[in-house]
């Protein structure tokens, strides 16, 4: 497959709005996770909340889409000149030649959760103000972004749990590759909701502390929220300094609905497939952004998979200690973190981890490293055994 150019990208998470806030937090190894109350949640947990979402007002013509998830989408779209770049691309390629492919695990389900608390006590009907289609339905965020940016190409949402917004990169690569479109807005948006907080809690996968990926004492995830958008374009030529999406590897575990294969079987296949697409050897990869959720079994399975493919020397870290697990947005958020690492010649050390688990063998970074690398890999693995590894590269002079 041909590489795709990455000229413009942005992310908004608990680390802040846009790339400058994100880069500053990564450089300072600052976590956005805090124990504080949110909505009506009565669980003992830390959250990676995006500040100020309640105060975001959707653009006047987009009011029907109002919900926490689409507010987060709009807030993120308006950072780093992303919307201007999309409009420039629309003028260059035509609005019908730009696709919108976004990942989400729960869309705007919070709106239905709240509406169910306001059902008519006699008839059981939901409040008339609740617009299922524009909020809760899984397509909502792609519908919102397509209209917000006035794009007219193909669009859909990928929802494969925590690999959702990694897999959208593969769609763009295929659709551009076979000539259906010339560019795509890809990314992911997932926002806090009760379904994931109480759901992961039911599986006893939520930590009461800020999560500790790859730590000997790790005991679960911290849920975060976030959005990331990347404009991918057909690469007619790649110049020195350019960032590209070079490889995408996908696989299924075919093992269990909510536990990874203990030997990282599907994870290995996905990482190897990403390398094979580009024809790269494992030692060419300068940094791996791990899925690294901080549950005991996920990190152990990923470690087996990573060391089987890469050995034990490739620098790795999870940035979920910074952002929390942004679930369906994690693939895109971490793609942006890989792009920042490639652009700014540094590898982010994990935060939250004190004592790396001696039973895990990958080269887990606890501090930032100043280092120029050419290729970075990002892992995303989800419920249902859905795996995706993305390979990003910087053309060196």
């Amino acid at each position: 497959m041909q590489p795709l150019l990455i000229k413009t990208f942005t992310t908004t998470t608990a680390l802040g709005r846009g790339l400058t806030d994100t880069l500053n937090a990564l450089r300072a190894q600052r976590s956005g996770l805090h124990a504080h109350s949110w909505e009506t949640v009565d669980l003992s947990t830390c959250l990676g909340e995006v500040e100020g979402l309640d105060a975001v007002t959707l653009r006047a013509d987009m009011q029907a889409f109002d919900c926490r998830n689409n507010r987060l989408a709009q807030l993120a779209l308006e950072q780093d000149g992303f919307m201007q770049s999309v409009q420039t691309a629309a003028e260059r390629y035509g609005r019908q030649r730009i696709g919108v492919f976004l990942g989400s695990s729960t869309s705007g389900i919070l709106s239905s959760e709240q509406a169910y608390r306001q059902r008519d006590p006699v008839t059981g009907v939901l409040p008339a103000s609740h617009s299922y289609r524009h909020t809760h339905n899984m397509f909502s965020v792609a519908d919102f972004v397509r209209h917000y940016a006035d794009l007219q190409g193909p669009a859909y949402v990928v929802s494969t749990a925590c690999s959702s917004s990694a897999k959208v990169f593969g769609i763009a690569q295929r659709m551009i590759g076979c000539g259906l479109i010339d560019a795509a807005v890809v990314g992911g948006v997932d926002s806090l909701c009760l379904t994931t907080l109480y759901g992961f809690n039911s599986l006893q996968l939520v930590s009461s502390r800020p999560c500790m990926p790859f730590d000997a004492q790790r005991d679960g995830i911290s849920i975060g929220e976030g959005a990331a958008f990347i404009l991918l374009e057909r690469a007619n030529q790649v110049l020195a300094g350019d960032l590209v999406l070079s490889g995408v590897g996908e696989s299924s575990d075919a093992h269990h609905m909510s536990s990874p294969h203990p030997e990282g079987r599907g994870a290995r296949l996905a990482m190897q497939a990403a390398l094979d697409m580009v024809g790269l050897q494992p030692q060419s990869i300068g940094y791996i952004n791990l899925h690294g959720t901080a549950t005991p079994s996920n990190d152990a399975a990923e470690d087996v998979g990573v060391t089987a493919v890469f050995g034990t020397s490739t620098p790795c870290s999870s940035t979920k200690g910074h952002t929390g697990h942004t679930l369906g947005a994690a693939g895109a958020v971490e793609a942006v973190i890989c792009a920042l690492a490639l652009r700014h010649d540094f590898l982010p050390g994990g935060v939250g981890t004190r004592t790396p688990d001696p039973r895990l063998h990958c080269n887990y970074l606890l501090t930032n490293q100043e280092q120029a690398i050419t290729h970075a890999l990002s892992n995303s693995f989800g419920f249902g055994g859905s795996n995706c590894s993305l390979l990003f590269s910087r053309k060196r002079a």
Partner: protein
Amino acid sequence: MTALQVFVDGIGLYAPGFDGWAHARAVLAAPQTYRATPLELPSIDSLPAAERRRLGMAVKLAMSVAYDAAKQSSSDLQNVGTVFSSSAGDGDNCHQIMEALASTDRAISPTRFHNSVHNAAAGYWGIATGSQQPSISLSAHDAGFGAALLEATSQIHSNAQPCLMVTFDTPYPAPLRTLSNTTHAFGVALLLTPRRSASTLCGLTLSLTQTSFHTMPTPELEAMRSNVPAARALPLLAALAVPQPRTLVIEYLHELNLSITLQP
């Protein structure tokens, strides 16, 4: 306009009045014979009993059409990628979670939570078949059939492997039922391949178009087509029931439809 060719090697279809492709094919060839009988699904014997007990109606529907399409083809499922597409996934399961979260104790069972992921059907399919091929799960609200067909076609043109695409929708229970667009269940699967083979039923050439879409000839079937997202496949399924060299247009997004030319 880019046009991409794929080949249909198998078709699965269950909905009220459509009891598998062999039955549905005869009905669609004579649309006035359609009768909306209750939906009946075969049992899914390939899953371990423990997993089978956890399946909701939506996942059963997806797996039923997937198996029907797959068994008409000579493709080895270990080499077949999958595309699952649904507007809302398992609406019954979602409703149960919404009710629990609106109650005082908010307890959700772990099974209910892992079944709530939009890719639950894909996960169970992987467990049942043992296939580690890539699988993607999509939603495009009421445009899910077109989305899945585009995705499957672009996959086949990228990796030259067969792809099983499954679009399924089931209605929510009240109170979400009245707010969503799905009035009843409809599941369709197409086993698509990159090359014509002995098991090929028909070739299809796809392109994006702004031309207006085709509808169904009887009021009952047109109501189904326009009320259930997955049933937007009906004009194509009716054409595949009696394959002729012709071009039809399937409704996808607003002012963006799919033109499909059949090569029997």
